[in-house]
């Protein structure tokens, strides 16, 4: 069985729109990135800010078109699929974004937010929709469901919102999930919950995931494999443990030392 998702030599150039980036040549956000992800795997993508992590995620979701290269999903080239297949693709690949508040339409209730993908994909029966929404909310461990169903985003905490964002992403039973820094905006005290949840989804539904982060510590917690992106290129890739324990690329090494860590012996070395 081949990989579920395959990135083939993806290059992405943004036309320059920033004054200082020089004329003519665009910003090269990604250069020749290839990556394949097996079904059921969680792969982590780390890298410095601006290294192209989000861009990669957006290319997978067809929110951006790669300048070169293409994305293969379940054996199909996503940039050439038919309209119908594209709609199917929208069910199969989902995304969770960094800022949970910003990804919710401010005037949609929780129910609307989660029911929206169902409606888009042709669910008509009210009762069915309701059932599915409740079920999904339960899956993301928001209970009692009734408490949340009629709330607006600003009436919820960040952690709750992120759960709802995940609920929205999984309500269509996708096969692949891109999570772009889903916890970086959240307080430490509630981060773990979201990470647990993602892990759980992976376990129970074999949901394949691309987990994007700049924070090595959460990656190590969640991911099977780890890819390090540096200036638009994948400089290192391998099983998480291996990469963390013996980083090969200087950037990975620098990254590792830069992470603020509790002093190992738990006594201060100030």
């Amino acid at each position: 069985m081949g990989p579920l998702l395959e990135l083939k030599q993806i290059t992405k150039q943004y036309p320059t729109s920033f004054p200082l980036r020089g004329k003519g040549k665009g910003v090269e956000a990604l250069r020749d990135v290839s990556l394949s992800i097996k079904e059921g795997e969680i792969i982590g993508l780390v890298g410095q800010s601006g290294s192209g992590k989000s861009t990669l995620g957006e290319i997978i979701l067809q929110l951006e078109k790669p300048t070169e290269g293409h994305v293969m999903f379940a054996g199909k080239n996503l940039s050439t699929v038919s309209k119908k297949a594209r709609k199917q693709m929208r069910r199969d690949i989902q995304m969770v974004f960094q800022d949970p508040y910003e990804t919710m339409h401010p005037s949609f209730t929780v129910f609307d937010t989660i029911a929206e993908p169902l409606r888009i994909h042709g669910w008509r029966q009210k009762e069915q929709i309701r059932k599915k929404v409740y079920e999904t909310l339960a899956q993301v461990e928001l209970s009692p469901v009734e408490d949340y169903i009629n709330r607006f985003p600003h009436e919820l905490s960040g952690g709750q919102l992120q759960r709802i964002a995940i609920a929205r992403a999984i309500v269509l039973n996708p096969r692949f999930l891109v999570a772009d820094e889903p916890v970086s905006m959240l307080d430490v005290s509630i981060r773990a919950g979201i990470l647990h949840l993602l892990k759980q989804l992976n376990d129970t539904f074999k949901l394949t995931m691309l987990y994007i982060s700049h924070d090595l510590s959460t990656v190590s917690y969640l991911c099977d494999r780890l890819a390090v992106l540096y200036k638009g290129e994948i400089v290192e890739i391998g099983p998480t443990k291996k990469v963390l324990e013996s980083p090969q690329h200087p950037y990975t090494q620098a990254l590792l030392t830069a992470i603020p860590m509790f002093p190992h012996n738990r006594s201060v070395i100030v």
Partner: protein
Amino acid sequence: MITVRKASKNQLVRRILKDPFALIGLILLLLFLIVAIFANFLAPYDAYEIIRAENGEIKKLYTPSIEHPFGTTNIGRDLFSQVIFGTRTAISVGFIAALLVTFVGVMVGLISGYFGGITDIILMRIVDVFYAIPFIPFVIVLVALLKPSIWNVILAISLLSWRTVARIIRSQVLTIAKRPFIKAAIVSGAGHLRIMVRYILPSVLPIALLEMAFIVNSAIMTEASVSFLGLGDPNVISWGQILHTNFLTGHSQTAWWWVAPPGIAIVLLLLSIFFLTRSFEEVIHPRLKRRS
């Protein structure tokens, strides 16, 4: 960043109740609306009726009295009735023009901002062209061209005013379209139409509503100006026209009761809308909130 919240309805009500100016604005506006709707019942005379005293003499230039609260014109027309019917004209011109303008402006702004690219460029160049046209002269010429009628005044106002709305909505759409919840919608598989109608439109609506209020005012003002120049609809009484007739017949420095009421009516109506919009603005743009 402007955000729409369902709760803002309550917030708006609360704001208005708390802000004495907005409250005054609301009461005034409601008053004007009532006057406009029930003009037929409220006006004691027809706007153009020439009123004669019992001895058959025409009541020329009567100063205000109980019978004629705003006095009469030089040929015995009841100014109170004229001002009341003028209210109806002002309100209808204002609101009809504003609805038209807002509709067109929002459509253009939405399409331009959402699709971007060449569509945006073309639409925005058209907006530029319309921005280069001086407003009142255009209305004057167009109205003269199409015959002075109230509908043509509305049309002329609308033909130009949408430029502002389109521009503002477009920039609003641009910021909203960049917001992650639009991306989230795309990811969920929503099409262009759905995104525009269900996601972007509600978010720009408050701004559109705000702009609409300004258009109401500018339309009323423009109609008054055009009518004051004598280019308005001669068969529809309006505040501007009352002042025009006064000026034309040379009574502007003597018959104060003829000059003051329509002018004050314009001031009050526009002011009431301004006061309301200010409260509204504070709700949709919370930073403006007075911190007391």
